[in-house]
């Protein structure tokens, strides 16, 4: 009985891959149906993995044929940045974001905002990032242009111990609070910021909460911070 069961599963998975799910749904016996579904999910994952291998090959081939022609938008911004500030880009591969060095970030930010064909006038989001307990930190800026409706993400790696990065508070006014929050959570110092203090945690809070190696402090002004479990559970 199991052989035709597998046949039934195999062909219903084929049909499901083409997209019509009811082939699997109307199998009466519950066990085979769940087996069929599992097989379908496995098949899908293999299909995706196979697709994933081809794309880099495809991309590489595409890059060789027409390196300049229809690059992604991020690549154009990267090229423009490299031309304006030689040496400011960290790595060359641009898949959706630009990796930059921190030194010329303030001038690059101003350039990105004032350049007529970029016009990134709204800083959407500043995200602090921690690669691991002893690796380095990173700040990710999502920029967006209200007029051209395009967006870009810029990442800047910072060393963990002396984490300094130029502040873009003068370029986008909202940077003021975003950077204070990133400072509050990760301890990244934004050089040139007007009021570099904590914004969410109290001033006398110990440690940088979102770093991976953060331990909660025991007491705060005489109040026990961690959960006192005895007597409860």
């Amino acid at each position, binding site marked *: 009985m199991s052989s035709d069961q597998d046949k039934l599963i195999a062909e219903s998975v084929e049909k499901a891959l083409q997209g019509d799910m009811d082939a699997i749904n109307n199998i009466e016996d519950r066990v085979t149906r769940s087996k069929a579904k599992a097989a379908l999910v496995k098949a899908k994952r293999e299909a995706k993995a196979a697709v994933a291998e081809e794309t880099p090959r495809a991309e590489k081939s595409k890059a060789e044929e027409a390196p300049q022609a229809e690059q992604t938008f991020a690549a154009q911004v990267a090229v423009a940045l490299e031309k304006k500030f030689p040496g400011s880009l960290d790595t060359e591969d641009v898949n959706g974001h630009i990796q930059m060095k921190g030194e010329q970030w303030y001038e690059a930010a101003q350039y990105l905002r004032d350049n007529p064909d970029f016009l990134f006038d709204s800083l959407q*989001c500043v995200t602090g990032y921690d690669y691991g307990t002893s690796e380095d930190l990173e700040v990710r800026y999502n920029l967006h242009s209200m007029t051209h409706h395009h967006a870009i993400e810029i990442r800047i790696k910072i060393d963990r111990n002396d984490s300094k990065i130029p502040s873009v508070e003068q370029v986008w006014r909202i940077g003021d609070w975003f950077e204070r929050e990133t400072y509050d959570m990760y301890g990244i110092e934004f050089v040139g910021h007007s009021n570099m203090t904590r914004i969410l945690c109290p001033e006398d809070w110990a440690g940088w909460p979102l770093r991976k190696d953060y331990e909660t402090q025991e007491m705060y002004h005489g109040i026990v911070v961690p959960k006192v479990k005895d007597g409860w559970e």
Partner: protein
Amino acid sequence: MGVVHGDLMTLNIGPQHPSTHGVLRLKVKTDGEIISEVEPIIGYLHRCFEKHCENVSYEQVIPYTDRCDYIAAMNNNFGYAVTVEELMEIKVPERVEYIRVIVAELNRIASHLLALGAYGLDVGAFTPFLYMFRDRERILDLFETLCGARLLYNYIWVGGVSHDFPKGFVESVYSFLDYFEPKIEEYNELLTYNKIFIERTGDVGVMPPEVAVSYGVTGPNLRGSGVKWDIRKDEPYSIYEKFDFDIPVGVGEMGTVGDCWDRYYVRMLEMKESIKITRQALKGIPTGDVHQALPKKIRPPQGSIYKRTESPRGDLAYYIVSDGSPIPYRLKMRSPAFTALSVLGEISQGWMMSDVLAILGSLDIVLGEIDR
């Protein structure tokens, strides 16, 4: 940069104040009446949302997104679910898309009702608050029949929704919409065209468009300043491109463009648009199984994503970095009320004490979302 002569004293419109919409402290330098400098101090409701997201699995994050913006919990779930689905390339069945739009727009109406009612309170009109809460209770009844909760729903999951529409739910939403449509005219007579309200909010707290964009202000506050920017139209997610609705923009009817009255009136018009969208969605809702695309184990592929949705307060965006494990590696929520509050210091210099509270009320902030 004081704009006022005479000595200045520092005053705290502190964490516990009837018109700060929660626990926000405004450190104010004033000469007794005119305010020369306002510094909003936040963090009194910092509940470590992002630390929780780095320790709980993707499904467990959803109740925390509810509690960030507790007035529009559905829109927060919606934003989060859409972001994770795009990260995992899940295609959600058509019926779920329609349900999500209906529920999100109803929650937008409920959120605007609360914002406008509380704004009437800030400016001194007590009865509109009671009228608007009476109608908001009807929406909460609908949500109660749908998912059992009044305020924090945990309803929109990654890949689907938790419960399908109960029997007769579509008819009750229709009857609510028909009941609610004339009520907006009632609010207009009650508050919008009230002489004192216009006197208190017209020309007060003007926010020029370039200041709004530089401060990252979005949503009804930005549209009040005349900038036509709405994620549902400009960067359509889910199935918003299927519905035709227009984006109300401030035109300076009772003063200049971008004053408190415009921000208030844009929200009132937005409620009408939400009714229009809900009606079209109700008409076109297909049948289907809502639990079909719910993944057994949410384990997104490696990578990061930044996706924006339109919550009643503006651009609600999630930046999720996943390392392939069922627990997010990093999740940052870009909260619209955070940017709306940052502009308060800029646009309320030189106004009187009561005007600053009117400006704060018109920005419609929620502290749970600002402090995360």
